[in-house]
């Protein structure tokens, strides 16, 4: 999944901290990104992911820490000098310029002098300076070529107002791509689109990344977007990176409960268990016995959170054979998702809220069960992750 350059670092953040008023938006962020990697920053809104992206772009100055790109410190550079391009959630297209002019702007700003850029000067300098004219022709050719690859060639003369959301997003991408930057920064570029288009453009972005082989830093609040597209994901909360790893690591081996809860849909099941006076774990009044492999005898009153992914819960009307622990629950309702059914379970002892969700293959024996049916729910210890009271993963054998 990682390219051959994975050992090198392309974009490095060291000790980035940023404060807005009294709130710490970023707290000592360290991140090392390999060249050509597709990185996602995910987290709930307000976790600092967009601010971090803006720090990389140079639109925001961090209070502390430094950013380096290709081994060079870029802290002192203006956004335009950093060799990064950015795609915004609102696309940020210039409404008064046509699609072609929007795409050409980054090149014009760089290659033409200010007096060669303005409309009147445009015609004049074309007459006076052959060089300006040649540059302009080259830019036009570049724009047309890029527009063709992004299927924008029929829209070049339209204004952004006349485009659909998906088309605008493509224009924004083209504007970012035109000067072949070293790093692409994307701030929730798909969140303003409808669900179908989002899935389609997700695929287009992955293809694009594969073709360009440059570094992508992608900000999203949608974990499924991050999971499906990224090489590695940094899960953020309250200005910190909770965990940075591959989608697979985050899903099956999260470092803490927040990551476990944030990644995966439906959300991971959590069971709060407490040790009784004799040192046995209890889930409500279901005795769970000792946790296998755990050497330490629990203190009475000690609490743990057990977490099980929905697909590892077994549910059946009859007692379950292939599981380590089981207990009775009530069927609340079943959601049909085609290949899978999501089974929502409530505990008869704490009715009202959905306690657990199990994900079963469709056509299970429960398919036609009525709400309120008494069922057995069970898990295997090998599928259970443990977290301490602070939400940190307990990995001791």
């Amino acid at each position, binding site marked *: 999944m990682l390219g051959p350059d994975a050992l090198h670092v392309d974009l490095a953040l060291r000790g980035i901290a940023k404060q807005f008023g009294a709130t710490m938006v970023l707290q000592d962020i360290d991140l090392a990104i390999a060249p050509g990697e597709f990185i996602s920053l995910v987290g709930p809104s307000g976790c600092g992911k967009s601010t971090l992206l*803006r720090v990389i*772009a*140079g*639109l925001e100055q961090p209070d502390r820490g430094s950013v380096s790109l290709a081994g060079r410190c870029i802290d002192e550079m*203006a*956004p*335009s*000098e950093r060799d*990064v*391009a*950015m795609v*915004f*959630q*609102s696309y*940020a*297209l*210039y*409404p*008064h*310029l046509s699609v072609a002019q929007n795409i050409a*702007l*980054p090149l014009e*700003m*760089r290659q033409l002098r*200010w007096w060669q850029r*303005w409309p009147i000067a445009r015609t004049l300098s074309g007459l006076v300076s052959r060089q300006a004219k040649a540059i302009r022709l080259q830019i036009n050719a570049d724009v047309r070529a890029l527009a063709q690859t992004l299927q924008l060639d029929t829209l070049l003369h339209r*204004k952004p*107002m006349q485009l659909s959301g998906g088309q605008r997003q493509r224009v924004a991408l083209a*504007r970012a791509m035109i000067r072949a930057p070293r790093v692409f920064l994307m701030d929730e570029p798909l969140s303003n689109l409808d669900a179908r288009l989002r899935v389609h453009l997700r695929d287009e972005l992955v293809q694009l990344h594969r073709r360009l082989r440059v570094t992508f830093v992608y900000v999203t609040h949608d974990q499924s977007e991050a999971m499906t597209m990224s090489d590695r994901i940094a899960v953020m909360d309250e200005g910190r990176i909770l965990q940075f790893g591959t989608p697979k690591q985050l899903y099956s081996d999260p470092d803490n409960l927040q990551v476990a809860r944030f990644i995966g849909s439906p959300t991971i099941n959590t069971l709060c268990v407490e040790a009784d006076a004799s040192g046995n774990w209890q889930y409500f009044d279901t005795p769970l016995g000792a946790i296998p492999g755990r050497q330490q005898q629990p203190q009475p009153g000690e609490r743990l959170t057990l977490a099980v992914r929905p697909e590892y819960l077994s549910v059946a009307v009859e007692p379950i054979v292939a599981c380590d622990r089981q207990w009775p629950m009530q069927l609340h309702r079943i959601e049909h998702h085609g290949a899978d059914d999501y089974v929502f379970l409530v505990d008869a002892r704490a009715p009202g809220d959905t306690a657990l969700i199990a994900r079963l293959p469709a056509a299970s024996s429960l398919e036609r069960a009525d709400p309120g049916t008494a069922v057995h729910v069970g898990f295997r210890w090998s599928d259970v992750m443990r977290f301490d009271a602070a939400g940190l993963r307990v990995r001791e054998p």
Partner: protein
Amino acid sequence: MNATQNDAHCRQGAPSVATAAKRAGTRDAKRTPGTRGGLRRREHWTGFSLCLPAWVLLCALYLAPIIVLALLSVTDYEMGAVRWKVVGLDNYRRAFSDPVFRRSLANTLLYMVLVVPLSVAGGLFIALLVHARGVSRAFYEVIYFLPVTATLVAMATVWQFLLHPTLGPFNHLLDLAGLGRHNFLNQPGLMLPTLAAIGIWQLLGFNMILFLSRLSQIPQSLYDAAAIDGASHAIDRFLCVTVPLLGPTLLFVIVTSSITAFKIFDTVAVLTQGRHGSEVLLYDIYLEGFTYSRTGYAAALTVIFLALILLLSVWQTRQLDKKVHYA
């Protein structure tokens, strides 16, 4: 600006009324075949009679006065006169050979040339400064908007005091600086620039508020995008984002400032009484119509005045409309 919005509104409104009428028509036609033509005619008259009150008012309040004005302008009618006759275009011929009228026209245009660019550019500049303020923004908005809310006639007395040749602090300062005392409201060469300065002072706040309301609608992400795309200097970003997006407001401000400047009257009436060197169109019309009671002649001047304003506005709108992007 308002007119174009109304137009757009009408254009949107019209088809829906038409389709509603058509729908009603087909429904009725199904029920009673054969009377469709009659129904349509009846609807036609209903619509017409519903419009009638508005039309009557429009004619009585807007069109009739202008027609009366145009008719008066071809007569030698004087206020209260018993006998009068039609003189054709004599009043107009007289106007263009009248040195006072010609001076008023030239002075009014000069006043406009001084006031419009400075009040528009100044208003934009102040708007940019005020926009960048945080908490103190409201304070500055009020300060600059004060002259707009204050009556110019009342404020003119303050100016008269400030600029007074012997009592005024302004002349005192000039004197201290060794520049000598000047009678700003009496010296022919100084009167018009002084009036223009007061005119700019009064317009700045109004223009600033208009610019401010638009400035706060420009999304920050556009400035961010421009910064990344290579507009590294603030002036680059101003030309790349602010000016194009201010387009419609800029057009509106230029047209309204021009009309306001063209209509200069109150400062002239209060401060200089149209002394030589400060004659302006509206004051000339006022003198002819009300002081000398030459109603016919004043009507002709008014027609010229209205025609000029109309021409000016249409020309400006046409010229600038081509360069403006409406978002």
